């Protein structure tokens, strides 16, 4: 009777107030059968890491349009590690300059999505990232 659902936290760190993109992605993941925890606007890295811990999510999706990603993302990655959640896959979406994307990936972000990304691709990537690891464990 065991039922395994992919759990995703969709969060908006920082101060920009535009969450249409985050909501579209949340909705697409829901329609793909995932359980999506949405925490709303203006979250600190601490709030996001805490929510990820309490909700035991497989994936954290960060939507950032403010340009503060190089400050926010490393902090969130560090907090996840401190909490013992190294296994959580982090995805970043929003307005990320081309030169920053590889640096985020180096830090341990799983994928970076810019404008025009198909939600189907995000769904596919998340499934592979989560279920792929599980099969390998």
């Amino acid at each position, binding site marked *: *009777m065991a039922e395994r*659902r992919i759990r995703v936290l969709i969060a908006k760190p920082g101060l920009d107030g535009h969450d249409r993109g985050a909501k579209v992605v949340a909705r697409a993941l829901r329609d793909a059968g995932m359980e999506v925890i949405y925490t709303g606007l203006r979250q600190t890295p601490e709030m996001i890491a805490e929510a990820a811990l309490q909700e*035991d999510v497989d994936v954290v999706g960060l939507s950032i349009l403010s340009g503060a990603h190089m400050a926010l993302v490393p902090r969130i990655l560090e907090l996840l590690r401190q909490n013992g959640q190294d296994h959580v896959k982090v995805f970043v979406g929003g307005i990320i300059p081309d030169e920053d994307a590889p640096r985020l990936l180096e830090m341990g972000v799983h994928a970076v999505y810019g404008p025009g990304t198909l939600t189907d691709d995000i769904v596919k990537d998340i499934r592979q990232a989560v279920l792929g690891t599980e099969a390998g464990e």
Partner: protein
Amino acid sequence: MNIAEQVLEGSRLALSRVLTYIENDQPEGREALKALFPHTGKAHIVGVTGAPGTGKSSLVNRLAYYYRHPPEGEPKRVAVVAVDPSSPFTGGAILGDRIRMRDLAGDPGVFIRSMASRGALGGLARTTAGLVQALDAAGFDIVFIETVGAGQAEVDVARLAHTTLVVEAPGLGDDVQAIKAGILEIADILVVNKADRPGADATVRALTEMLKMAHPTQETIMHHGQRMVIEVGARREDAPLWVPPVVRTVAVENEGIDDLAQAIARHRAHLQETGEWQIRDRVRLQSELENLLRDTLMQRWRATVSADVYRATLEQVFSRRLAPSDAVAQLLDGAPAA
């Protein structure tokens, strides 16, 4: 140290994992619950139900904050289990109750867990009771259960909680809604939230009237052909009656939260003084036992019957040659479906 011991030691990571194991009905979850069970029975379990948009999450946010920063006495540790609906088509869910609970962020005395209903009706998920047990064992003094909020038949929470809050808001229905059976009957405390809105007085009035009828202070009986009026309190010498109070709140403005917390404290005291606390505890455990027994018996029985026999019997029902009740008798007697 096994994971249940880590939970008892206060590890939030272990607790979070255990909640997932229980929710997914994994063997690790059942093992952990076994180990945690002797440590349960201490938390005050408070159910919060009511129609969507009445402000359940905002109220839980404010109440939890109140218990963390009480005007007097020690702060209490608070856990929240917030249930939102799963899509019946994809099984996916958007769990959005945390949006209204940001005041609780960064507080190690609070643990909030969202869960999807995963196809269960009645406002909770099938494993909600298990999650509440784990949080109880982990030492939280108060565990809030926030239901899906789908409506009038959402009464399962009353079986699980010591105290059930039913949240209403002005303008959601006429006074006939207030006399329908179901959700209002399970209320230990009625909350009229958004009480600054027009129509709040009418809502409070309708609910108060309904309560008077449900909990009459006088009863008229016919005795040897004579009409007699007796005071209810005089007749029931056993236990004082709990009449659900109607509390007005404006959660987003933090108004009425003290009153509500006091009503919850009074209800808790009432349960303990009258012995109702133990009764509710026993009723809850009995119904949990019976649910588990039903699931287990079903699984065991399915293992004994061949898929072909089951399928053949089912076909007979489909073609209207066998009534479902006869099919059950036939299957349980082990007679081959001819």
